[in-house]
């Protein structure tokens, strides 16, 4: 049966889809009203990334919020972490960010935050989605309707202040690092320039920092999409290059040789920096590299693993009072002392701080990490066959300890494999890691073979 294309997802993580036939202003408005009803009367912070559909959806969501009796604070175009910090900083009831993060430009989404500026936990998410489906929204009368105030100024300052408490700004400024930046014309464009140039005193060479222009490259920051950044680093002789995603939560890093680092290694470097500053354990998702464990062990710290997804990592970090956490492969760095959210700015500051402190180059620091070989991939599957696929995979690795909290992760002595179903597409995501390239290929091959045979 040919599948009908439906590019909309309404689920526990909010609402996400291709704008036009799928994600409509009516849906965004209804979701805004459900959210306003759920969190109760009070201020809600609303901001967005630079997608062409952001303004339209912001007005739609604001309409729903006002209709529910919420007071709206419009913070305009800001990175997602900055919006989250704004919510926490100002004691608002909640926040909405109109952003589809690293998804392609035709997508957009509503990200919803509670009064602490955090994603709702899974129970709250369930309640909210039930409320949305029941459509029993609060409907404010004229006398109960509050207005919209604008604050396009204070967001970046609130965010920077929190970060600067944790790094040696003077040491960074003294080095006057030559830094390259690829802002993907995203929400962080102006703010990142200000942060690196004026606050951290870098000699900045930036590309794609015009928030009025479309995304010039694939939105997700990864080696294939950061070739221009790599070229810029080499051309300008930069000591480090940073690549952001459109809403400034993800970070990718390019070393002084123009090589884009593996995101798991970036996370490991930041974990190292953070644990030197703050006591506490580490939380990462199941797909994150074991290099993080090695780094944590050096500091005498433990690593907790969670299902994939920022909300899952954040929930566990909160529960174990972690010092640092994140999701390796997708460039998410979470440092709770700044805020419990993925934050590319904290990542940039920590790496520059480490470079200033140690006098080492970024490539040197990366080379000192234990070497792991990693491979990610995906295969499509038919609905209804998922259980059988997982069983045959387990049989292909007899006697190996398994973790079933998110798909299936098989833990071998010298590596691991992780297979999970995507939340958004009928795809299985595969990941494997080993100490040698040969062993990696062997493990990965066994996984693919097991999945193909069944």
């Amino acid at each position, binding site marked *: 049966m040919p599948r009908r294309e439906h590019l909309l997802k309404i689920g526990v993580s909010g609402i996400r889809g291709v704008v036009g036939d799928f994600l409509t202003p*009516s849906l965004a408005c209804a979701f805004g009203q459900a959210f306003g009803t759920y969190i109760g009367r009070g201020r809600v912070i609303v901001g967005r990334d630079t997608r*062409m559909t952001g303004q*339209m959806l912001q007005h739609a969501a604001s*309409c729903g919020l006002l*209709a529910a009796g919420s007071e709206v604070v419009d913070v305009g175009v800001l990175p997602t972490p900055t919006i989250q910090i704004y919510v926490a900083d100002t004691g608002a009831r909640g926040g909405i960010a109109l952003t589809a993060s690293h998804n392609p430009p035709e997508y957009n989404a509503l990200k919803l935050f509670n009064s602490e500026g955090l994603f709702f936990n899974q129970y709250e998410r369930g309640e909210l989605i039930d409320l949305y489906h029941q459509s029993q929204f609060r*409907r404010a009368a004229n*006398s109960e*309707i*509050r207005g919209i105030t604008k604050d396009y100024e204070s967001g970046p300052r609130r965010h920077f202040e929190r970060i600067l408490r944790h790094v040696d700004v003077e040491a960074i400024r003294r080095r006057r690092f030559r830094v390259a930046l690829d802002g993907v014309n995203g929400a962080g464009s102006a703010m990142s320039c200000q942060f690196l140039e004026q606050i951290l005193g870098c000699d900045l060479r930036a590309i794609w920092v015009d928030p009025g222009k479309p995304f010039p490259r694939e939105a997700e920051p990864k080696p294939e999409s950061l070739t221009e950044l790599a070229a810029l680093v080499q051309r300008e002789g930069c000591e480090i290059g940073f690549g952001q995603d459109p809403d400034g939560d993800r970070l990718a890093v390019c070393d002084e040789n123009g090589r884009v680092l593996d995101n798991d290694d970036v996370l490991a470097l930041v974990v190292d920096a953070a644990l030197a500053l703050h006591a506490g354990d580490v939380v990462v998702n199941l797909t994150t590299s074991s290099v993080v464990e090695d780094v944590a062990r050096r500091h005498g710290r433990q690593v907790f693993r969670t299902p994939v997804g920022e909300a899952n990592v954040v929930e566990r970090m909160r529960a174990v009072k972690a010092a640092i956490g994140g999701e390796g492969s997708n460039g998410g760095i979470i440092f709770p002392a700044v805020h419990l959210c993925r934050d590319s700015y904290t990542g940039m500051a920590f790496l520059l701080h480490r470079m200033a402190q140690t006098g080492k180059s970024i490539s040197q620091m990366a080379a000192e990490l234990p070497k792991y070989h990693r491979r990610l991939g995906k295969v499509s599957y038919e609905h209804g066959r998922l259980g059988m696929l997982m069983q045959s995979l387990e049989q292909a690795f007899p006697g190996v300890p398994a973790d079933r909290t998110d798909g299936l992760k098989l833990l071998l002595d010298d590596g691991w494999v992780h297979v999970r179903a995507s939340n958004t597409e009928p795809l299985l995501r595969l990941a494997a890691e080993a100490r040698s390239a040969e062993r990696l290929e062997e493990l990965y091959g066994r996984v693919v073979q097991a999945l193909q045979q069944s």
Partner: protein
Amino acid sequence: MNEPQLLRISHVGVRGVVGPGLTASHVLDFASAFGTFLAPKVPVVLGRDTRASGVMIREGVIAALLATGHDVIDLGVVSTPVIQHTISRIGAGGGVSIGASHNAAEWNALKFFGPNGIYLSTAEASELLDIYHLKKFDFVGWTEVGKLCLQDNAIDPYLDDLAQVFDLESLRQFKVLVDCCNGTSALILRRMKERFGLNLILINEKTEGVDFAHDPAISRETVGLQLAPLMQPVAADAGFLFDADSDRVAIATEEGNPVSEEMILPILADYVLPRVPGRLVITNISTTALVEEVASRHGAKVVRAPVGRQAAIDALTGYRPEQVALAGEGTGAVMMPQFRFVYDGIASMLAILSMMAERKARLSEIVDAYPRYSMLKGQLPFASRRLPELLMEIQMAYSDGRVTSIDGLRVDWPDRWFHVRVSQTEPVVRVICEQRGDPPIALFEDLMGRVRSYV
């Protein structure tokens, strides 16, 4: 059906009590329908009156218009006539006015305009309603989504045009007291005062963060609340009351007498008709017969249409613009051809002041010079099923008069008339009787008794 009506969706748009009646979802759907109805990608002008709920509705209208591919030019808080003026001035493809005019504060509404700021015809409004009901909207792809542009200087060009038509210099001699009822007229009049030096004293002129000082209805009663008692203490020459979106106006004389809103149309007819001899006056069948008397003095004819703005629009489309002198209702809403046939309270005010200047007459002299007509109005709830029966009974009982049945039942005699009809906005039957001279009390009581017997 005697539940209080909280929502009404009709040819003139959507109107309701915000919250229990009019919801965000209605706003999104109606504005999406309008965006679908308009020619693709034309810019749309948007404005709102001073109600708190206007902010919520504005957000929804903007989102829906952007999503259907239209750029939106938002004028902020402005009067409906300024929105219509701007549509035509900048050549926009249409416009939306958010505001419930003379309705109480808890109401709000969306009104839609086509190119040149004209109201939608009945055929166009039907199409819009069909799209709304089908809920199949043409949302554009992500690269085609419209852009929002804020424009807060729409009042000045509007005033420039008013200054072309009226000799504002000559109006500086009058001290004018205005009850803005916290509506959009305050913004226009403040600016008019600044730019043209008119001696305007504004009361209830705050437009933000306040409730309406009183019911924004336009009537002799609301003029009597604050405006009329203040006339003599401040020694004003004329007093005007505007509704929230400034399309209607009522007056108080320098002696402090509130004047019936029915008088606005006859007074303006008297002012306009000598300048455009041979042209028509268009009004509805509930409006005072003084209009005919004034028109006949100037050798002009009166055309009467069913009650309601939509009927007036349809009546207007039957004539070329140069055939019409003015059009209006007994509600204080009047349009003059200089203003592209837009109900405009501010223009009405300037016309009345100009009349005082030209005739060198006090307002009370102008008002008192007209023969006295007395009008009685009543309303009662009814059973819809028995309405045709009721109207037939009344028609039989008054078979000696001239019958008009285009909207309920109107019966005319040489010096008096009555009109019994069903309201378009509330579940009531309205009874209106008018007589030259004293009030037609017996006729009115008889009609009310008959209506009551059918409840």
